[in-house]
């Protein structure tokens, strides 16, 4: 069964007189537990797709069906509810609250979701057991991104949406983060969707969605994905 179904989704921005199509009639499906990579050059509309998927923006037309429900019709409050219950975000610039410690940043999700995962356990699972009480500014980039991932999975969402999660990291740290995400997908059956402009990562994905100029160019299902650590960067 499909977890996610995009049907002819369009997102248009009006810039004065000109109309910009950030997403132009895009359709695809994603199954539960898949490790998906959305590829495309910068400005192609990858982030738009991710934002629409995460309920962070409104589609201009089309259907976005998540677990059988069309979230494209959702109002603001329903979208918030949807985000709170189903989606975990990981951003390129981590976006942690600088005035909260690692532990507190993750514990923040407890205020939204009741049946989440234990905060300390999650932090330990991303390898941060020793750094829980540090503020973001006291952590390295990789560590901050791991806090961000911990925060995302702490809510126990059905999907993890990662927007260029390794964009601000060096290669080694980036590989480590991607491995972590792949592990989550394989071991905990989380649906992980990563937006990237680095084509190399495609070898590790179950499914690759390519986007260019707001249009879907191809969807490849990879029957034999390899481990992130084995990818030739």
């Amino acid at each position, binding site marked *: 069964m499909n977890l996610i179904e995009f049907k002819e989704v369009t997102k248009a921005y009006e810039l004065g007189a000109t109309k910009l199509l950030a997403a132009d009639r895009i359709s695809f499906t994603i199954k539960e537990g898949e490790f998906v990579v959305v590829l495309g050059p910068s400005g192609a509309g990858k982030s738009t797709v991710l934002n629409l998927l995460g309920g*962070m923006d409104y589609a201009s037309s089309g259907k976005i069906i998540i677990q059988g429900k069309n979230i494209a019709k959702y109002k603001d409050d329903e979208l918030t509810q949807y*985000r709170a219950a189903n989606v975990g975000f990981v951003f390129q610039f981590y976006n942690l*609250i600088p*005035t909260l410690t690692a532990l507190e940043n993750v514990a923040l999700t407890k205020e*939204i*979701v009741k049946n989440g995962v234990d905060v300390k356990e999650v932090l330990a699972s991303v390898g941060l057991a020793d750094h829980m009480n540090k503020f973001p500014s006291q952590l390295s980039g990789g560590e901050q991104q791991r806090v961000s991932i911990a925060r995302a999975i702490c809510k126990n969402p059905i999907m993890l949406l990662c927007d260029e999660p390794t964009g601000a990291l060096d290669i080694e740290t980036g590989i480590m983060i991607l491995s972590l995400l792949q592990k989550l997908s394989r071991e905990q059956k989380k649906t992980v969707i990563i937006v990237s402009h680095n084509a190399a990562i495609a070898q590790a994905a179950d499914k690759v969605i390519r986007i260019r100029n707001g249009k879907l160019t191809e969807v490849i299902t990879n029957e034999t994905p390899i481990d992130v650590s084995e990818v030739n960067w």
Partner: protein
Amino acid sequence: MLFRKMLRDMWRNKTQFISIFLMTVIGIFIYSGVSSEYTGLQDTANDFYEETNLADAWVYSSGFTKEAADAVRAVEGVTGVERRLTISSVGNFDNNPTIKLHFAENNLISTGKLMEGEAFTIEKDGIWLDTEFAKVKKLKVGDSITVTFLGLTLEKEIKGLIMSPEYVYSEGENDIIPVPGTYGYAYLSYLALPKEIPMVYTDLLVTTEKPVDLKLENAIDQALDGKYSVFLARKNLRSYMQFSEEMKEHKAIGKIFPLLFLAVAMLTIVTTMARLVNNQRTQIGILKALGFKRRKILFHYISYGLWISLAGTVIGAVVGPLTLPYLFYGPMMTTYMLPEWRSAIPISLLYMAVLSVAGCTLATYFACRNVLKDTPSETLRPKAPKDIKHSFFDRLKLWEHLSFDIQWNLRDIFRCKGRSIMAIVGILGCSALLICAFGMRDTFDYIIKWNYEVLNRYETRLELKSDITSEQTDKLIEKYDGEAIQEGAVELKANGKKRSGELLVTDQASLIRFVDKDSNNLELPVNQISVSYKIAKLLGLKLGDTVSWHVFGDEKWNTSTIGAIYRTPFTQGITVSKGYFEQYGYHFTPTTIITKQEVSKDVKDDAALGISKVQSKSMLVDGIKTVTEAMNVLVFVLMIAAVILAVVVIYNLGVLAFTERQRELSTLKVIGFKTGKLRSLLLKQNIWLTLVGIVPGIPIGLWILNYIFNFVGEVFDFMIIIYFSSYVYCIAGTLLISVLVNRLFSKRVRKIDMVSSLKGVE
């Protein structure tokens, strides 16, 4: 978690939040302090009035019969009537104090509150003396006191010490302000009156259901068939009036200053929160992405304003009533006589507290709501730079010729309007407060000069005994090269309004001068009546209008045309020449001799026997200075508040502006601007804004001053005077604070690290 975030955010922006906190604390502190002061005193006074059954009206005549009293008692609305004899006596002390003796018939109305000794009843013999007077003269219960009146000497044992509700505020005859120990009062039973004196009841004390209005006054007038000289409603009783006027004045002060501080607090909140929310744009985005409801995020940011103003309000409301009232009570105790001095928390404090918290919270809401409107994906993107439109300056031909400094500063001021407005308002407040403080000081300083150098040019006043012979008077005039004047009380009536005032009859006195309302010298007409400016204003009188007047103790009303209006600070009333006075059938009987000479109090010759009191100018001036001490407290509080206001606002803004412009400043630094040049750039803007704030600050300060002096009371007329030097101090002081604080934060320019501050955001 969000609460912790809030606390840490506040800590990071501590300058701003401390200033918001301080402003709310000061605002509420002043309000709660002053309001609990006057509420407490008003409550005390009201309880005192009620407990002692203060009369609602007094009627005076040369004697009321029992029938007259009964007739008044029968008037509808009258609940009680009592007769009393009041005689002025002289106490047997060095300074010949005047002691008013009240011989009561029943002692049911305007009874004295017993402070010490046994209760006063009609059956008991003895005297019940003014507590304050006894204190100054070190008299105790059981001592005896000797007084002289109408040629008789009366010695009585002090049975008790009392406080009368009619003497909350009182001053000796011909005194401008109370001088303790020079006057007093005492209650006695009518049975204590020596047999040599026939019993006549000069006062009629009346209590009524409702406050006395004109209708009731007319009804009483009819009941007495017009046979009385003065009718005094409670609101016109000197003691009652003076006290409630003073309370009104405090109320005015307690209302206007807190509003200024709360306004600044709100402005600071708006700018601080707008900036904070802007800087936390991505954080808001992440909260949204996490699935926090919009309402929850909004509450989170609103709670900044809520908690900080709540904390400030609570602290201000607690500290104010515990401290400020006692600052006022000290100096006030020398002027007012109340059985106790307590403060009370008024209900209005609750409203004010709610207003302050709600105001600050609302201000936060308006500052934050915009960012929350955007969708989460928009919020996560950095904000599009603000459109910088060409301001109208740019279009001016002049613009191109301006130096870079000026262009940069002008653009900066108009780009950050909120910040600039806050700076201007803060400076405006500071200079307005300083003007108020200096204005009060100067006005009081000038009043003394005005009264004793410009108007009254004598060195000494010799108060004459009422039984002095005209030979003695003439001798005194000759001996001291003095001038005789007659002083007394009058009642004035015009345009349906009635006011009591002072009467001055001069015999071409050269030692008393007059000025008009603008301080120009004025010669009073010899054959017309002259009215003081304040009373003319109260009665709505102009030059050439007619006014009815009558002398206290006399039933006859006279009508005159006003020939001059003169301005004087303390003695509101009328002035007439001896000749004019005598045209109306009165006899000129000097009550006072004024002289340029200094007179020793110890002179004991034949003529000196006619003197009841010798008052030197320095004594009178000292007396006024004690009264103005209460004002000095206020002046001091205002100055401190002004300085805190300016320092807090400017420092806060400096820090704010500095962090906002860090990138710009480091760009300039990279280009090659020297630190000194950048500092002067910042200083320039600071000085401009300061000057722009001072300009409206001065008239607003004057307006506040005017507002406050409106409440000084009907018998006072204070011309607002601010010396030129005070303007200079005020402007220079404000500028100095502004420049010093600027130096404090502009030091940081040197420390700007060009590399890191020009690197990307995060």
